[in-house]
């Protein structure tokens, strides 16, 4: 029943349409503009193929082929509802006139676009903003009476911490289209980001979310009504991909603040993503170019963001998937901790007293060409000079559109994102402890095949005093790296004593994860689950050489040489 409920698009009844006020953020217009957005997507896609009979036939045939294949394999309610329709089209397609084919293309595009299109209900937004903190707080205080909003705020405020130049972001959001591009570790990311934006007085964003996230009906309700549009990764038809890209492009051209995860999917290894899928970032660059050619010069501003957790809700599933599939990750996981309420309760309960259990760090905002952007939305070049971003689109005196060029700009931008992710990674206590212990394991097992190393459960025991000392030295080096601007260290890790850090991390792991990651026995720390040590420690992998103990570069090199892919 839950699944059936989840598939429905729940909306609150509306007797009068909400008319956005001038002061409302752009996202408040989403509901009003929904039909128009869909029609614009349909118009563009039909225009792209409509004049060419071969193209229309090709795109319809591709859609028919892939949809029938998918629906046959799915074998579910959707299959029953839709399969007949596509089969009917297969039979009819050869006999349809050109005009009818164009009409069919239009209909199918419209249906797909409505399936994708998001919604935004300001009532739900206001409700969520009030209720979510209360719900989270009661999860964190099971058994206690529901606290009032005022009383819980300080604790929640410290649970999720936002870092970065927020005042500048606030001002930029008023004059520019902002695209957040965060790292992706957990399905909680979009919620954490959405909540941080609300709390910091930043306008809400629209974002694409995998259809699998809509399986929980409560979350589905909020997602449907808070600007999320649905991406069904099972649909392989080119037409669907065009609809998604065009929908996101139209939103961006119209100035909707957006959120993309350039990693494409949650990091399975725990490492910050290095290889990005830049399709959606590319639509943003193209949207800026198309607007510029039409004489609209509203700035487009990208904000690389890192989302850093001391505990990751789905850590166990993610690292098992990474290792089991030996690099060929399952793309869609719909049975992980995210869909289980008991794991949520355990997760938040464990974190309830942890200051900055999740740190969101907004990196410097940049334009589509990698230049920093000031509070007025202006691109700033070396020496503080104001740059005109439309100059990047000029060739031989004219503003031009050039898909290949925009693609190259997007690639360069991707390299800027990766650099910003590294420099703004906030090292969390659990990651530092895990890195120390995993490095110890590598040191103790020289030349051992990586998968065999992971089977050494409970074999490595290091005197607690040595772990404490090593953690202290690691922290010193992390702080040196922070001083150079290479990364960031969580304030608590930077200030607490290594002993306290170890105690808290062990307690957090023990209180949340179902397997024991590490435990203290007879004055020694025992590495119980090397997989999760690998997962949490991987966050520091890019700096393994710099963080190596003197004379132990070999260990770092061996750690870096571990290959998990087949």
């Amino acid at each position, binding site marked *: 029943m839950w699944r059936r409920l989840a598939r429905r698009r729940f909306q609150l009844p509306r007797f009068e349409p909400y008319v956005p006020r001038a002061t409302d953020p752009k996202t408040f217009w989403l509901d009003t503009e929904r039909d128009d957005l869909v029609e614009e997507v349909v118009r563009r896609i039909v225009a792209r193929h409509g004049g060419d009979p071969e193209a229309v036939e090709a795109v319809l045939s591709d859609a028919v082929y892939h949809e029938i294949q998918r629906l046959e394999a799915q074998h579910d309610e959707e299959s029953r509802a839709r399969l007949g329709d596509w089969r009917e089209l297969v039979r009819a397609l050869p006999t349809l006139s050109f005009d009818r084919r164009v009409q069919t293309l239009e209909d199918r595009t419209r249906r797909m676009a409505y399936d994708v299109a998001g919604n935004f209900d300001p009532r739900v937004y206001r409700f969520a903003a009030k209720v979510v903190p209360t719900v989270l707080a009661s999860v964190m205080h099971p058994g206690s009476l529901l606290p009032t909003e005022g009383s819980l705020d300080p604790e929640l405020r410290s649970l999720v911490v936002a870092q970065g130049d927020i005042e500048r972001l606030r001002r930029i959001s008023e004059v520019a289209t902002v695209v957040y591009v965060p790292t992706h570790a957990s399905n909680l990311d979009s919620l954490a980001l959405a909540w941080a934006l609300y709390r910091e007085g930043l306008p809400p964003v629209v974002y694409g979310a995998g259809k699998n996230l809509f399986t929980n009906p409560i979350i589905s309700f909020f997602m449907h009504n808070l600007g999320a549009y649905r991406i069904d990764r099972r649909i392989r038809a080119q037409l669907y991909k065009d609809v998604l890209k065009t929908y996101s492009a139209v939103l961006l051209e119209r100035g909707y603040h957006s959120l993309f995860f350039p990693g494409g999917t949650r990091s399975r290894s725990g490492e910050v993503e290095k290889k990005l899928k830049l399709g959606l970032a590319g639509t943003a660059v193209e949207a800026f170019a198309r607007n510029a050619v039409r004489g609209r010069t509203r700035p487009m501003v990208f904000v690389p963001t890192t989302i850093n957790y001391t505990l990751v809700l789905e850590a166990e599933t993610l690292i098992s998937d990474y290792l089991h599939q030996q690099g060929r990750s399952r793309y869609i996981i719909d049975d992980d901790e995210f869909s289980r309420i008991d794991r949520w309760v355990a997760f938040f309960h464990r974190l309830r007293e942890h200051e900055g259990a999740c740190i969101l760090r907004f990196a410097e905002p940049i334009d589509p060409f990698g*230049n920093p952007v000031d509070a007025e939305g202006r691109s700033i070049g*070396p020496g503080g000079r104001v*740059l*005109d971003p439309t100059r*990047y*689109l000029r*060739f*031989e005196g004219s503003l031009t559109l050039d898909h290949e060029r925009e693609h190259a700009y997007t*690639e*360069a931008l991707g390299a800027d994102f990766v650099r910003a992710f590294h420099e703004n990674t906030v090292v969390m206590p659990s990651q530092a402890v895990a890195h120390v212990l995993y490095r110890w394991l590598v040191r103790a097992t020289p030349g051992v095949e990586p998968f065999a190393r992971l089977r050494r459960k409970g074999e490595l025991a290091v005197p607690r005093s040595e772990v404490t000392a090593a953690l202290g030295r690691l922290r010193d080096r992390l702080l040196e790296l922070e001083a150079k601007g290479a990364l960031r260290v969580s304030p608590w890790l930077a200030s607490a004593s290594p002993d306290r850090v170890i105690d808290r991390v062990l307690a957090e792991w023990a209180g949340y994860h179902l397997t024991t990651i590490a435990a203290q026995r007879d004055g020694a720390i025992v590495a119980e689950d090397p997989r999760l040590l690998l997962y949490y420690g991987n966050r520091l992998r890019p700096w393994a050489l710099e963080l190596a103990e003197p004379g132990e570069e070999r260990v770092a090199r061996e750690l870096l040489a571990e290959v998990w892919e087949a």
Partner: protein
Amino acid sequence: MTAPVGVIGGGRFGRALAGAVSRHGLGVRLWTRRPDEIDLEGVFVTNLPAELEPCELVFVCVPSPHVERIADLFATHLDGGHLLVHVSRGLIGSDLVTVGDVLMARTPVRRVGAMAGPISAHALEAGDPSGVVVGSRFPETTVSVRRVLAKAGCRVYGTDDRVGVELASALAGLVALAVGIASGLGLGPSMRAVLAARGMVEAARVVRSRNGRWATLQGLAGWGDLAAALLDPTRPELAYGKGLGEGRIATSETSHDEVFIEGRSLCRNVVRFAQSRGIEVPLLEALDAVLGGTAPHDAMKRLLARPVGSEGIETLGP
């Protein structure tokens, strides 16, 4: 009105390029530290970076040790409307950072390209037909260079493998140097050809490890450039190498025939890069030894005493 073409650097190649472009009726602005020493008909010579702002296409013709400084100097005068194309054979540091990467990192310009191939200052001065390849992710960069140089009889090919072009050009230069040394030592054409071919296999390993394409090395920037050097003993790298082999030139000299030779530090950095990644580069190690002061004869003897194995090119892929 067409924007003038900019040239940064008043060395021999920069002057030859500015002269060739200007002879075919295009406006040229040449920036150099010493404008008084240059008198080229039709070329506006200046020492003020701001004078190059109205240009669209700007050639960067300075030796790699000066590129960072020049990039910083021009960073406040260039923007997204400019296209920068450099002709350097150099690479920076033991991570082999390319000149194109430096220009991208230190200036607001994104449309950056690298030009390499058999073209030479001499060919440009004499108006001889020639050819180059421009490596850039931005097609407009190649189109622009083609429009400017076509009239000067230069065939401008394009590739999106900029890093491949930059590495191929640098490494082919080193191989030419090694072949020059062999020639100075009196080795015949047959052995020189062996060294050239083996040197290019080493080059291919390095190009691949920096994500350049092997095919780029087979093109104008690599083999094309090396062929030009092998066919023309007056090419600077070859003549310089020959002088080293004969003992006429000291390794402390950094230029030949007014052309800066990217030799000693480049070779040292390539060898360090290769060693740190376990890439086999015996010819380049021998060249590094010679440039570091080992007698060319001894280095060559050691090199040729190595055991012979398979060609090892089948692993280099497409």
